[in-house]
């Protein structure tokens, strides 16, 4: 059975600021990022749909100590965002001073862009992550 939406296709779309998801033919739930089976009901019949990428910050951290090869990036903010459609995504938050990130971020509305991670010797090529900004 062929995989409906592989990470490469998902990431190529993300680089165009298009967030792709999979809508389940059985239960209607949207699965993001892609998987073989619906995260709600485990059905495997799903259609590719475009998801808006709007959501709210559920939690966050500011990273001061990071992995080998990424030292120049610190400090940076990572957020978990709950999309309006339900799924959660991990990404970075830009547009604030990472040193001032506080609990007040939780619940704030965000919109999504993207950031390219060029990859390292272990990552089998580049990666793409959501890059969120606060909605005024």
């Amino acid at each position: 059975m062929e995989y409906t939406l592989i990470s490469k296709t998902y990431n190529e779309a993300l680089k165009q600021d298009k967030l792709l998801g999979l809508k389940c033919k059985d239960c209607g739930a949207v699965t993001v990022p892609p998987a073989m089976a619906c995260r709600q009901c485990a059905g495997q019949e799903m259609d590719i749909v475009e998801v808006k990428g709007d959501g709210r910050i559920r939690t966050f951290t500011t990273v001061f100590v990071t992995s080998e090869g990424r030292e120049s990036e610190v400090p940076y903010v990572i957020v978990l965002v709950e999309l309006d459609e339900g799924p959660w995504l991990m990404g970075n938050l830009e547009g604030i001073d990472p040193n001032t990130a506080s609990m007040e971020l939780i619940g704030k509305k965000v919109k999504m862009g993207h950031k390219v991670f060029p990859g390292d010797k272990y990552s089998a090529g580049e990666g793409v992550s959501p890059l969120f900004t606060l909605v005024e």
Partner: protein
Amino acid sequence: MKKVAVVGVGSTKFSGPQEKTEVELFSEAASDAIAASNLRPSDIKALFMGNALGDFDEGQGMVQAYAAENIGCRNVPANRYEGACASASMAVRDAFIWVASGFYDIVLAGGAERAATMGTGLATRTFAMFSDSRYEFPSGVTFPAVFAMLAHLYSDKYKIPLPKLREQMARVSIQSYNHGSVNPKAQFFGKNADMPVEKVLGSFVVCAPLTLHDCCPFSDGASAVVLASEEAAKKLTAKPVFITGIGQASSGPLITQGDYLPRIRAREISSKQAYDMAGLKPGDIDICELHDCFSIASLIAAEGMGFFDFGTAGEAWEQGWADIGGKVAVNPSGGLKSKGHPIGATGAGQVYEIVRQLREEVEPERQVPGAKIGMTDTLGGDGGTLVDMILQRGW
């Protein structure tokens, strides 16, 4: 299904970077466990070994086969388990199943790791391999970052103001430091006792809100246990410790656990399996070695295993209910925070501690008086693998 006992245990000291290889470390722990079981290496029918990152630790793959040969367990089937920080618990659980099935009567299980040898940069990178490489690592996630986010989520969900939660988390580290300071096998033996709350809170921030003293160290070390059928165990020891309940469950990446967080669903499934199998409840457990990779992880674990209501474990630590003499003695070894966390060995190290506690063999300052029922809880990744086991005195 046969009853299965732990007959003998062994462990190296857990430590910072040191010179012995994983084969050498595991061989020391395994030989101690075999000797303590009144056995010889040739009596071992199979070897199950946890080792998460040996390829990166020291450029060594297939370490389990070389360990078997090195110890003198010649030509036995040898399996390696990789479940991030739960690797050794997976090995012990599978060893249990094979002995319980009757296929083998005596099996060696355990694990080894040299995480400290990698240094902080490479260790942080390789530990981050246990997050999703496509959908999480590009954002720069690290293991402290995962638990830092869970701490903020915990504060928000249970309406505990962050400064209050951070003080409760500090109490977790302080308790672990105190117990580890009197455990000669602990990485921080002789160190960090009676650390003031202010020092925990004021150390440098790794990932907000977690400071250095909220985080366990990178560690080198090995632990091993010998499991035997009840029949074989009778001939080997007067103090068999029976494994009476086991559980294991998995989950997808952190983002797929979404709304359930900060609770870890796999832990709740895994621990329920162990309780149901043993016919016991959380209130029956005298002593527990649980997965305190970060201070907040202790609170999440103790609640997920049912020792305390959700959102109240911090108060339990403040009141001493999670200490020796409390409701359940948590991590009298010092836990991952103070004993250390050589990830491929950690679960076997927890079993090592519980067995010695139930036999009343540990240092008097940290012995849980009259402990009869113990439990281990090991978390791999950010909830991707969970293993829980219940052990009981067999005499």
